[in-house]
């Protein structure tokens, strides 16, 4: 009788034992496979979460560096200095954006200017409703932004462009005004809006030919949040009178206005977001190799906190899963050794008979190994199906968790709680939007399955082999004396 036939007979006739072994192996391999699938998925989740949490760094002028400060006034009692180094301008943005791994930037400048329409007439401003008191009836606050998508007013939906469009990165000569201001001055999308900066506005002489800059109105916004307004609120502090323009056009205009003073105007800071916060260090390193940027005058501040927190949470989850896989494998391995050991003991008689019939020990061992391997293969096949289902279930849960987690992160960022707010103390830190993870692939790769199969078969064969050592120790004569 062929050894494989004996194997099949044993596995099918001793089906109780086979079933127990099958179930043990099924549970172990399903858990291990699912564990690996979760591990794999958690890495995907980590990558997604990382992108969601984002990471930003700020490029700022190093105004505190004494090397770049000059005396403005210096008397015995009193001295004042001013920053005379390089300032951040549009070229610096372009240089930084050349670095790979940087996705977006946000640069903004706040200014004040008189508003004029295309025909040269001054705008009327919306009043605060508590009696206006301003000596500057046409002067409005100007927010110049590289892109209004990152402007917290718009990102947090306090303001919403309901007509036309937002100012985005490539826009030049663009302006967005409030519906109230547009209606009061009977302007609409496509009309020209001129900003005027003169001595009345800034307190020093501005050459006549550099006093004006003209924009085209591309969008009109509505105000969604409630403002804190009282009798002391200035007209230009009302959001209705606020004008948003693109920073690329605004910066050279402001420079022109202040040129005579010898005090260069630049962006105070530019915020850049990176594709993957895990890469932050290497991105900054390659950025700092760019010599077109004057690193003596600029410094970098990194905000990677959200990512680092999430990363450590994910790492500990990772460790937990690894521990679980290890524990299951260890317990399963132990159970396997025990079961196969006990069964091998109960089979000494059978072994003796086979030996007495002239079967070699090697052949008997092969039968033992083949039996376990056969059951292991069946269990592995079944576990492929089981862990596929388990992994899907786990995947959905992980996805929900990731989205919940990142949802909380975004909420934390939001400044607007529904309470009335004051434009005067509004924090203008740019907000970078995060994409939502739509799908989390928890899948069993063929590679993963193959390696688990190989490992499990190896363990099973090792256990069966160890247990089968009793075969090697059995003296064929024992059967005659011990079992008679």
């Amino acid at each position, binding site marked *: 009788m062929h050894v494989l036939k004996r194997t099949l007979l044993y596995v099918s*006739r*001793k089906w109780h034992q086979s079933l127990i072994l099958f179930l043990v192996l099924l549970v172990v391999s399903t858990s291990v496979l699912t564990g690996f699938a979760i591990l794999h998925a958690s890495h995907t989740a980590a990558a997604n979460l990382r992108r969601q949490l984002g990471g930003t760094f700020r490029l700022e002028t190093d105004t505190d560096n004494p090397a770049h400060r000059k005396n403005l006034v210096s008397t015995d009692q009193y001295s004042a200095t001013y920053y005379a180094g390089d300032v951040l301008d549009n070229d610096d943005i372009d240089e930084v954006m050349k670095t790979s791994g940087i996705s977006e930037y946000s640069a903004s400048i706040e200014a004040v200017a008189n508003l004029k329409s295309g025909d040269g007439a001054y705008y009327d401003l919306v009043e605060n409703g508590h009696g206006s008191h301003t000596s500057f009836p046409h002067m409005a606050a100007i927010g110049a932004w590289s892109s209004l998508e990152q402007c917290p007013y718009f990102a947090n939906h306090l303001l919403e462009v309901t007509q036309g469009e937002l100012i985005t990165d490539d826009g030049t000569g663009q302006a967005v005004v409030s519906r109230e201001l547009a209606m009061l001055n009977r302007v609409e999308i496509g009309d020209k809006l001129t900003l005027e900066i003169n001595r009345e506005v800034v307190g020093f002489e501005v050459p006549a030919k550099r006093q004006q800059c003209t924009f085209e109105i591309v969008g009109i916004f509505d105000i969604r949040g409630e403002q804190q307004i009282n009798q002391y609120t200035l007209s230009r502090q009302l959001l209705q009178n606020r004008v948003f323009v693109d920073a690329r056009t605004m910066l050279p205009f402001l420079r022109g206005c202040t040129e005579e003073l010898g005090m260069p105007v630049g962006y105070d800071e530019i915020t850049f977001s990176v594709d993957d916060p895990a890469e932050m260090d290497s991105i900054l390193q390659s950025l700092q190799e760019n010599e077109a940027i004057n690193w003596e005058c600029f410094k970098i501040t990194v905000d990677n906190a959200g990512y680092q927190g999430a990363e450590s949470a994910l790492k500990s989850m990772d460790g937990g899963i690894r521990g679980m896989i290890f524990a299951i494998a260890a317990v399963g391995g132990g159970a396997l050794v025990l079961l196969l050991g006990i069964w091998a003991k109960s089979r000494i008689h059978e072994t003796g008979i*086979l*030996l*007495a019939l*002239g079967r070699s020990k090697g052949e008997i061992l092969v039968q033992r190994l083949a039996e376990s391997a056969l059951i292991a293969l069946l269990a592995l096949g079944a576990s492929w199906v089981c862990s596929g289902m388990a992994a899907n279930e786990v995947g959905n849960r992980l996805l929900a968790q990731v989205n919940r987690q990142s949802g909380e992160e975004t909420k934390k960022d939001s400044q607007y709680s529904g309470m009335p707010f004051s434009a005067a103390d509004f924090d203008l830190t740019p907000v970078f939007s995060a994409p939502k993870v739509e799908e989390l692939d928890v899948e069993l790769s063929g590679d993963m399955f193959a390696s688990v199969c190989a490992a499990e078969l190896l363990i099973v064969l090792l256990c069966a082999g160890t247990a089968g050592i009793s075969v090697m120790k059995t003296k*064929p004569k024992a*059967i*005659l004396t011990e079992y008679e």
Partner: protein
Amino acid sequence: MSILKTCNVKYTYDGKKPVLKNISAEFEAGKIYAILGTSGCGKTTLLSLLGGLDSPSEGRVLFREEDILKGGLAGHRKHNVAFVFQSYNLIDYMTAVENVALTAKLAPLPVLERLGLTKEEARRNVLKLSGGQQQRVAIARALASDAGVILADEPTGNLDEDTAAEIMDILRECAHERKKCVIVVTHSIDLAQQADVIFRLKKGELVL
């Protein structure tokens, strides 16, 4: 010419007191031998040496004039000898046919039928057969292996008198009609009487 032969075989379990002292005997094909002896005198030990389950401390066992160590003990067990045990020693997860097929060089079913099992019984799990039927299966397994020597260790020890007589008849038939050399260990003088040659094992020595 003898098929199986022992030359000055000595055997000891502990290295001191010998169980078998100086056994020289010859066994021929076509004959049935009985080995009689009191309990503990070393009958099973001798049979295990003849069957290559163990090797003698001193001396040699020859099969067709060749030392059985030469072809290996496992080979000797596989090709030259077949055992029939008192407790049958059938493999419990197999049917009668499958047990016989374990060693079979001949088709199992006809052998089983000739020994009186029905087809249905032959296909039953061996644990669901009576003791006599199980012993027939064991003998069938020995016969089907086509070995020249059948070594039976108290083959009727667990059976009633009538069945024992039937089994003995079968074994005798194996020797006389199939030209096997059958060696039966027993302590029943009645059974031994039916053998062609009776040996007695006394104090480690084999006497006629």
